[in-house]
């Protein structure tokens, strides 16, 4: 321990010595009282009084010479304060964050993706010219600035959830959740697509940049170069003022299948997603494709049909062994019970009716993709909407193209 000054250290040492002397005297009095109570009540009462006086005298001495609490030092909690601690999870906020890396031969930078080949086995040299997560108004990655990710009152979270909670609905399991800032419904949110939205305009917690504050909506971009036999192609994707509020990944152990099960909600909102073929100098672009007001809400897995992520083992057929398997199994059967001929709840087994009603009517299980407008060059192609998609069965297995 380091002390602020030698005078305080001396006082503390003296206080400790004094307290030790008091403690010794109190112990002696109590020991004497234990032995002598029955034999001599009067002397015993005197011993108790002596101990009590010493205890009372020692308290002010300790307080008078005690080291004053320093900012940041630990403090004792009362029982009332401790009983109010719930400790749900860990919140993470990135303040003034900026990430950038890429390929620049003059600067000695290299960022390559390998292991990719064409269908006829030719190696593809895939170079990441630039990958960035930065503040808004980056001008497609040319002018990088800082951004906050998450808010202090609504951070990114790592939590352990109770599966018995009806909102989680994985009975008997603890569920690990990695979550982005949640969407809000109390009128304090911001429109998820507008880069100039004000408070109360929507459900997203992350704020766009305004009034000198850079907000919590980053620009994200990726510039790729694919080279085959000396011939290069370029692909650049940039998202402005991107928002992922409401996204989460939940993982738990499925005891029936003895494997990892999960539920993924992937939300992505951006006022502009642009795609171009510009090279690293910014030329040769052709027309830039712009998807404006892009909103993607993708649901993979739910409590009725969890997402199962596994790898085929050595005992799988040759074409599957060692390959990744992504599966959303068909829905489990409910308990026995009939649905009325008119489909109404009144004449049906209510538990079975509620089971199917929840599955088909719960919007959290549905995926949506909205595109406000697709613009190619100076031509508008109009918008597109894909709403209410429910994935009822999915089974994807990778395959190694190497002979």
């Amino acid at each position, binding site marked *: 321990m380091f002390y602020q000054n030698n005078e305080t250290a001396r006082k503390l040492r003296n206080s400790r010595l004094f307290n030790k002397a008091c403690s010794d005297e109190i112990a002696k009095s109590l020991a004497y009282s234990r032995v002598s109570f029955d034999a001599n009540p009067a002397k015993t009462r005197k011993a108790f009084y002596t101990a009590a006086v010493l205890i009372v005298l020692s308290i002010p001495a300790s307080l008078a010479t005690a080291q004053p609490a320093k900012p940041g030092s630990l403090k004792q909690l009362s029982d009332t304060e401790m009983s109010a601690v719930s400790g749900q999870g860990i919140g993470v906020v990135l303040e003034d964050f900026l990430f950038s890396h890429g390929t620049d031969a003059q600067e000695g930078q290299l960022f390559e993706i390998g292991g990719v080949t064409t269908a006829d086995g030719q190696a593809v040299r895939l170079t990441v010219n630039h990958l960035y997560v930065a503040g808004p108004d980056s001008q497609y990655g040319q002018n990088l600035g800082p951004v906050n990710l998450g808010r202090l009152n609504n951070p990114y979270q790592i939590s352990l959830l109770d599966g018995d909670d009806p909102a989680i609905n994985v009975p008997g399991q603890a569920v690990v959740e990695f979550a982005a800032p949640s969407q809000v419904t109390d009128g304090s949110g911001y429109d998820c697509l507008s880069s100039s939205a004000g408070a109360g305009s929507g459900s997203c917690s992350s704020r766009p940049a305004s009034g000198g504050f850079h907000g919590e909506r980053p620009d994200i971009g990726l510039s790729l170069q694919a080279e085959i036999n000396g011939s290069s192609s370029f692909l650049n994707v940039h998202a402005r003022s991107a928002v992922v509020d409401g996204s989460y990944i939940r993982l738990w152990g499925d005891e029936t299948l003895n494997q990892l099960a999960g539920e993924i909600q992937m939300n992505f909102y951006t006022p502009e997603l642009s795609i171009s073929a510009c090279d690293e100098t910014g030329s040769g672009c052709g027309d830039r494709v712009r998807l404006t007001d892009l909103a993607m809400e993708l649901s993979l897995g739910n409590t009725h049909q969890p997402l199962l992520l596994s790898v085929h083992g050595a005992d799988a057929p040759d074409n599957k062994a*060692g390959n990744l398997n992504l599966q959303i199994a068909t829905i489990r059967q409910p308990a026995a019970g009939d649905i009325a001929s008119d489909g109404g709840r009144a004449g049906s087994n209510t538990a079975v009716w509620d089971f199917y009603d929840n599955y088909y009517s719960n919007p959290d299980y549905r995926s949506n993709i909205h595109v406000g407008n697709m613009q190619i060059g100076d031509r508008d192609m109009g918008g597109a909407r894909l709403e209410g998609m429910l994935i009822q069965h999915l089974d994807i297995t990778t395959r190694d193209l190497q002979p």
Partner: protein
Amino acid sequence: MISNLMKWNVSGLLPRIRNRSPQKTISNGLMAAQGNRGGVIRLCARYGIIVTAFPLFALAMEPLDDESMANVAGQGGMSISGDVFINEEGGPISNATFGDCTDNRRCGARLASQFSEDGGWWVLDDFRGRFQFDGLTLRVRHIDSGFGGDGADFDRSVLEIGLPGTVSMEEVRYTLGTSTTARPTDPGFQQTNFYSIQMEGDMRLEGNVLVFPTGNP
């Protein structure tokens, strides 16, 4: 149970830490030592997890007098520099499959994870390279302002991890794939690689990571 979610297997990992030379500037750290050349010896990174490490040669710790020690409050935080090699000349295993990086044998580290009973393995393979960073900071910070108005309502302390600004990489590479077995030497080994990454040069990584408990701490 969460503890039965995954199995892990790590093989062929050999990290090495190079001590950085002492700097002349004084940082307001938890501990201070004066080397023969003067200045403060910075803490080094190990295994990517920050622990305290002191150099074993040349710059031994010397006791501070009472006046110097009295000026150390130990609440300003910690500044950390790191120079970490992962399997720069191969790992600790040398057999028909694993070796050094001068031949065709595997020389990077391997991390495998199994998500289902008796199933295959997710694999982070051939992980190696050198990471250098300077100025990673750790401190407790009380926030009661800023953040677009959120700070005043927050009014709590957080653990602040200051990112170093620049991370220099040399020959950093890894491969992501799936495999039938945890190790290439196990019977029935078959692996499908999805992609490989190779990185060199300086990466910009700026800002602060603020960590705090949620719920009602």
